C-alpha cells in the first residue's frame, strides 16, 4: 500500500460512508472504485487492494468487477476524458467525422492519452443525448450538436489550460478526478449550475404551447450574446428558451386537470 497516511485515512473514512449507504457492504464496490479513481486518476493496483481490504474480498474479485465496466480506467487517465459518440445515430449524423478530425488533431486514438496527460480520447456508445446528435462528452458532461470545428475548439481550450462549459450541465467541466468523486456519491454542490434545459428537451413543451417555431428558426437567445465571449461557439444553438413558461400554459392540450398534476 503506497497511499500516505493522510490519504489512506481519508479513503477509509469515505469508504465507510459509502458502505453505510447499503444494507450489504459489497454494494459499495462500484462507488468505491469511483472513489479510488478520484485519488489515482484510474483504478490502480493500490486502489484495488484498498477496495479488497475494505470489503473483505480478494483482489481478484475486485479486479473482476473493475474490468467489467468501461468507466473504470486501467491506465492513468487524462484530466479530461473526451468522448465522441460513434453509435449509429451520432455516427451517421457526423460523429464519425468528428472523431476522425479530433483524433487527428489531438494525435491519439481510442482509449489513448496525450503525453501531457490532459486528454484521453474515447469512442462512446450511446450516451442518451440522441436528440442532440452528434454528441460529445467531456468528463461525462454533455456537449450537444457538435461539429468538427466546435469539437476542435473545445479541445484546444482544454489544451490551453482553460475551463470548458458544457451545453447542458454545470458551468464548467470538473476534472476527471473530481467527477469520479461525485460519481462515488460525494456531492460537489454544483447541482444548481445550469445552461438551460436545451432546445430539444423542450421541443414538445414548446410545441404544445406555441406550435412550430417560425421559419427561419429564431436565433437562440441573441440577447445573451453579449454575455458570452467565446467566439468559436457563438453560432451554435447553446441556450434553450428562457425558463419562463407556466406549466398550465405548457399543458394546454393535456386532458383536465390542465397542469397534468393535482391542481383541481
Amino acid at each position, binding site marked *: 500500500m503506497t497511499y500516505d497516511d493522510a490519504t489512506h485515512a481519508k479513503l477509509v473514512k469515505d469508504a465507510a460512508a459509502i458502505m453505510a449507504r447499503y444494507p450489504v457492504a459489497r454494494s459499495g464496490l462500484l462507488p468505491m472504485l469511483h472513489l479510488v479513481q478520484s485519488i489515482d486518476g484510474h483504478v490502480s493496483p493500490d486502489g484495488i487492494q484498498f477496495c479488497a481490504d475494505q470489503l473483505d474480498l480478494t483482489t481478484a474479485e475486485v479486479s473482476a468487477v473493475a474490468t467489467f465496466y468501461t468507466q473504470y480506467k486501467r491506465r492513468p487517465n487524462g484530466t479530461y476524458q473526451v468522448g465522441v459518440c460513434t453509435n449509429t445515430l451520432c455516427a451517421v*449524423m457526423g460523429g464519425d467525422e468528428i472523431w476522425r478530425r479530433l483524433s487527428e488533431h489531438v494525435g491519439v486514438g481510442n482509449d489513448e492519452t496525450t503525453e501531457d496527460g490532459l486528454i484521453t480520447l474515447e469512442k462512446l456508445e450511446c450516451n442518451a443525448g440522441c*436528440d442532440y446528435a452528434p454528441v460529445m462528452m467531456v468528463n461525462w458532461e454533455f456537449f450537444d450538436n457538435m461539429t468538427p470545428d466546435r469539437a476542435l475548439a473545445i479541445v484546444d481550450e482544454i489544451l490551453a489550460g482553460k475551463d470548458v462549459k458544457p451545453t447542458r450541465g454545470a458551468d464548467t467541466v470538473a476534472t476527471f478526478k473530481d467527477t469520479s468523486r461525485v460519481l462515488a456519491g460525494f456531492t460537489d454542490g454544483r447541482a444548481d449550475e445550469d445552461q438551460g434545459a436545451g432546445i430539444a428537451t*423542450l421541443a414538445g413543451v414548446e410545441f404544445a404551447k406555441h406550435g*412550430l417555431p417560425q421559419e427561419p428558426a429564431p436565433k437562440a437567445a441573441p440577447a445573451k450574446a453579449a454575455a458570452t465571449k467565446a467566439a468559436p461557439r457563438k453560432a451554435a444553438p447553446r441556450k434553450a428558451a428562457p425558463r419562463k413558461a407556466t406549466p398550465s400554459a405548457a399543458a394546454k392540450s393535456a386532458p383536465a386537470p390542465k397542469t397534468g*398534476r393535482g391542481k383541481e
Partner: protein
Amino acid sequence: MTDLTPVLSATWGLERSWNFDTYCANGGYDGAKKAFAMAPADIIQAVKDSGLRGRGGAGFPTGMKWGFLPAPDGGPRYLVVNADESEPGTCKDIPTMMNAPHTLVEGVIITSFAIGSNHAFIYVRGEVVHVYRRVMKAVQEAYDNGWLGKNIQGTGFDLDVTVHAGAGAYICGEETALLDSLEGRRGQPRLKPPFPAVAGLYARPTVVNNVESIASVPAIIANGVEWFTSMGTERSKGMGFFSLSGHVKHPGQYEAPLGITLRELLEMAGGMREGHELKFWTPGGSSTPIFTDAHLDTPLDYESVGAAGSMLGTRALQIFDETTCVVRAVTRWTEFYKHESCGKCTPCREGTYWLTLILRRIEAGTGTPADIQQLLDTCDSILGRAFCALGDGATSCITSSVKLFAQEYADHVEQGRCPFDHAASALFDYDEKPSTAAEEAHA
C-alpha cells in the same frame, strides 16, 4: 391530429425546475399526500386499473409487477429504479432526471409505500454526472423537507433512498444484471425464475421499474385513474415520451398519448430535414425491428407496433433519411451489441462477434452473396437462446433490414463497395476521406 400531453415534462421550462420549491409550487408531492391517505393495496389497485405499462421497453403492466411481491414476511423488500438509460436512441429519462428529478423521488415514495419497502435505490448510469448531481440533490431536499427518512410527514412510514452511479455497461439496464451490479458484482443477467419479485436484491422481494414508469405514478394518484385512462388506446393507456432523433428538423422530447403516429409526430417536429425524405426508423430503440415510411400511420401503442412486426420499446424514434446506408447503420448497431454483450451466454457472446465480422465485410464491399444468408443463420442461433434480451435485440435490426432492404445488401456485395456518400448524411459539410471509420475497429 393528436395533441401533445406534457405531464412529466410540464415544468421543464420553469426557472430552476429541478428544485423542491419549484416542484411544490406546481402541484408537486400532492400525489404523495393523497397516497398516504390511501391503503397501500388501493394504490397498487389504482396503478393496475390505470393500465400503466413499464416504460423501460418491455411494457409489462406496472401494477401487476408490484402485485407479484409475496406477502410480507417481516424481512426487507426493495424498490430499485432503473435509471441506466442506454438503449441507443433512448433519451427521455435523462432529461426527466435533469429537469424534474422530484417527479421520480415522489414516485419512489408512493411506490415504496405501496409495496412496503423501506429502502429504495436509484441506479443512474455513470456517464451523466450532472444528472447524478440533480438526483442526489433532489433526494437530499426530500430528506430536508420530511419526505424521506423516519416517520415521513408524520405517517409512521420510513424510507431511505440511495442514489447509486453505475460505471458504464449497457447490460445493467437489464433488470437482473442491474441487481447484480447493485450488489457490487459484474453486471450479468440472472436466470429467471426466480423473478426479482421473489428473489431480487440480496435475494429479497424486489420491484425494478424504469424512471418514467415510477415518475408517472404521482400524476396517476393525484389526478386519478380516469384521467390517465382518458389518454391512449384501448390497451395502451396514458401518455409517454416519444423521443425523436435523427434527420428531423426539430428533434426532441414529445410527450403524447400512446397511439400517436410518426406522421403526427413528424409534423410537430417540422418534418424531415429540408429536401430529404424518410427512409427507415426505429420505433423503440435499436433493439426493435426497423420500420419504413410504410409505417408512418401505425399507431405507436404496444399492440399496433407489435402487430406491424416491431416493438414499442422505449419509444425512441431514431429517424434516418434516404442518404443513410442501412448496412452501415446496422453494422454499427451490431458492433454496439458485440461490445456490450456481457459474455455470459455463448450464443450472444460468440454470435455478436461473428455478426460483426460478416457485416463489416459486407459494408466494406468484400462480402459474398452467401454472407447475407450467413447473417440470418447466425441470428437464428442467437434469438431466444440467451438468458436476457440483449442477444435478441442484436438480431432485430439485422433480420428486419435484410427483409426490408435486401437490394441494398446485395448492392454492397455486387458493387464491391458501399454505394452511399456518408458525408451526405452528416449535419455539416465535409469531404469524406477514403478508408476512415468503417475499417477501424470500433472498440
